[in-house]
């Protein structure tokens, strides 16, 4: 019951997925070939854990041979990245049918991802999704991993989301999206792709957790002492946050938080569904045990901009809702004290119409650390998801860049050539302008 299906789209989604399933396997004690480790005397952590089948069930499907297969689908319009998985460390973990690749890619073009190239692959993807969904007893929802700026991540995802809403209308769909960093660009046409995909996906998603690369680069450089962070370091950090969000579904805890509970508590209006993610403590492995990270320390750290996974200043906005997911050695008494302390601070401003504002989840499993990674093992951690009006800054930046390019109709012919019309661009831009106005309205006092 309560199964979750993960769909990883495009290069970003697939690379994050690789790190994500690696971490899940470590947390559940599953080896790279899908078999659970027997509890040996030195694997006492695993023995300690309540090994009921229910904990695997949400993310892994057990075959008759005793292998655990992830409930995931990896989709890309070109084969290179997926071949990396097919030949990588986890090749025997996934069933070949879960790794889908096309032949020509979307070339950073939303129109290709959605209309021309994407439409050829969509039916196959939906069929595989249906197959995976049938294996589930009670499918809770979908977790979609993708980037906003790429062609497949933007175009194909919007197509897929529309079709998923058509087929599975009552299921939750949560997204983990990589938002284009303010000062670091990987593609010139990112703004176009982002605006177009946000416009078409907003009504089909229930909640989108955004992260951006620049924020994570800074964290890696300043806190973890990594001189030049590679995508591997960045993804490893991001999946710690993802793991915290899904921990309640996989492990027991005194205060569990379901997927639907996120939505209910974080999303005040259907369109205002872009929470900001923060994670604490982020400590370099060299500096393990230096400081005592008490519950109040890590809670305070979450509200600092240096621990956020998105570049935006929450002090410029107001909080609408806040979800704190603790894991590890945490007792409710300390959590209450920490939250009371935060509420009394001036820098944390809530909107007038939301008096209580905090949702808490506690899970007993401390975060697992990947061997050879940069993070230190800590005994307790917290992942904060906050819906703040300050995130409108991110949209404003994006819209501004879009306007600059669109005013000159630069790079537009690549989209028009694939069958798109200028009207769609205008419509999308209008939609985002309306989104900005919605945020402003929500943040106003009575």
């Amino acid at each position: 019951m309560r199964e979750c299906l993960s769909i990883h789209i495009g290069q970003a989604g697939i690379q994050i997925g690789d790190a994500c399933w690696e971490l899940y396997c470590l947390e559940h004690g599953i080896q790279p070939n899908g078999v659970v480790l027997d509890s040996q005397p030195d694997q006492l952590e695993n023995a300690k854990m309540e090994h009921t089948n229910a904990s695997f069930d949400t993310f892994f499907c057990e075959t008759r041979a005793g292998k655990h297969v992830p409930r995931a689908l990896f989709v890309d319009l070109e084969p290179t990245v997926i071949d990396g998985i097919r030949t990588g460390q986890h090749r025997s973990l996934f069933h070949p049918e879960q790794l889908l690749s096309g032949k020509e890619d979307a070339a950073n073009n939303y129109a290709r991802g959605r209309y021309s190239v994407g439409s050829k692959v969509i039916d196959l993807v939906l069929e595989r999704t249906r197959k995976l969904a049938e294996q589930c007893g009670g499918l809770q929802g979908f977790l979609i991993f993708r980037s906003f700026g790429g062609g497949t991540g933007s175009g194909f995802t919007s197509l897929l989301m529309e079709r998923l809403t058509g087929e599975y209308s009552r299921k939750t769909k949560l997204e983990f999206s990589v938002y284009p960093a303010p000062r670091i660009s990987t593609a010139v046409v990112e703004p176009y792709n982002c605006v177009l995909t946000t416009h078409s996906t907003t009504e089909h998603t229930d909640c989108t957790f955004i992260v951006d690369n620049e924020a994570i680069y800074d964290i890696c450089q300043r806190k973890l002492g990594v001189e030049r962070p590679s995508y591997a370091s960045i993804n490893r950090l991001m999946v710690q946050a993802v793991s915290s969000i899904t921990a309640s579904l996989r492990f027991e805890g005194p205060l569990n938080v379901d997927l639907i509970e996120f939505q209910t508590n974080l999303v005040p209006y259907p369109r205002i569904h872009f929470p900001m993610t923060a994670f604490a403590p982020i400590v370099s492995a060299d500096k393990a045990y230096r400081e005592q990270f008490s519950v109040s320390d890590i809670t305070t750290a979450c509200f600092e901009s240096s621990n956020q996974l998105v570049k935006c200043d929450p002090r410029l906005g107001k909080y609408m809702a806040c979800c704190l997911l603790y894991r590890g050695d945490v007792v409710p008494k300390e959590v209450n004290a920490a939250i009371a302390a935060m509420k009394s601070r001036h820098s944390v401003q809530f909107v007038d119409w939301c008096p209580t504002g905090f949702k808490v989840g506690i899970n007993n499993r401390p975060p697992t650390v990947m061997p050879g990674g940069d993070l230190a093992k800590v005994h307790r951690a917290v992942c904060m998801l906050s819906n703040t009006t300050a995130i409108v800054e991110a949209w404003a930046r994006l819209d501004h860049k879009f306007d600059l390019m669109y005013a000159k109709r630069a790079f537009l012919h690549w989209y028009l050539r694939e069958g798109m019309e200028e009207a769609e661009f205008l419509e999308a831009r209008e939609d985002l302008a309306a989104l900005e106005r919605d945020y402003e309205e929500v943040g106003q006092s009575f």
Partner: protein
Amino acid sequence: MSDTLTPDVIGRRVEVNGEHATVRFAGVVPPVAGPWLGVEWDNPERGKHDGSHEGTVYFKCRHPTGGSFIRPNKVNFGTDFLTAIKNRYVLEDGPEEDRKEQIVTLGNKPVETVGFDSLMKQQSENKLKFPSGSALTGTFSALKVLVLNQTGITWAEVLWCAAWCPGLEELYLESNNIVISERPTDVLQTVKLLDLSSNQLIDENQLYLIAHLPRLEQLILSDVGISSIHFPDAGIGCKTSMFPSLQYLVVNDNQISQWSFFNELDKLPSLRALSCLRNPLTKEDKEANMTRQLIIASIGQLKTLNKCEILPKERRTAELDYRKAFGNEWKQAGGHQDPDKNRLSEEFLRAHPRYQFLCLKYGAPEDWELKTQQPFMLKNQLLTLKIKYPDQLDQKVLEKQLPGSMTIQKVKGWLSRLLKVPVSDLLLSYESPKEPGIEIKLENDLQSLRFYSVENEDCLLVRW
């Protein structure tokens, strides 16, 4: 905790408003009435004096401003280990998981250890005090991780502690002002990770005392003020027998300012990863890339630098650049492409111990590689030419700089303005000092000087 004036209190660690200190004296300090505690702060500038008041010495401090007298009620003795655990877990909700408990009596303080294989002792809020001379009634044979940060512990006490933990694998001793005073002989032999950060009194000579721990794989020496290291038992280009298993060394936030540091690190036989941020040598932002390359080239077996993997391509580029950058020095120090004629000076070998190896790997640097590039400025592209008028003896020889791309037509135009001779009458040719007597005619007006291979120091001959 109100046992303020018992002798028990001396040596205990206390905390006042976030600053840690050790109690050195308890008693009365005339003329002010009432009990006082004399404390020595961890931070040597926090105090007011060195333990003496109005002439009488009550206790001694390391620094003239290291001590203060404080009222006992202003001081926080912290909670001991047992109470801390009880407050945390036992009070309301009860422990959430089953725990294996192992009670060991230590001196006259019962200590409850909680956990499975690896256990972390809460530090710093605890003032660990060692009753001297008490018999041990048990050992922590399963203890693998011991954290004693900021406890004011000394090296002798560490070794004493370590005797109870024969299987100890990780030992954290940050901020204790430790001075390594003796070589650990039977203890600490299984230790894989040692963290000695922020112990400002450590210097490189003390490192020799821990150099023979057989299993030590990770050594963290951040912020200890170290500036150099030397392995005297190994000559240039050889491996040392010290630190035989050391794979990962962290030396961030130190005073390293000499490249010879990295040359010495090359002598470590197992070193695979190094973190060396925020040192004077590596601080300049402009040269960050070059610094990284130089470090990679200096330490041959390094696989990870500052937590970034060194890919084979990066290593190759770094080593080739190193070889080229110091090529001129190598030549001057006696280097030669022919290995028989190679006689390098001691000094060069000491400064660049890997250079010979790099020459073997990539070949000795060729002369054309070592030519310094002139910056691409216009003045470096000009040809210096002499202008002679062979048919007119009284005209002086002119020297002029002309660009090689100038066409013959333009040269003639300029000459005609200079000599007041019409362009059509001029006949140009040139000769080169490399081949005297041979004159080459510059016939085609539309071609440039460079087309005719006119070079620096050549001589233009003008006739009309």
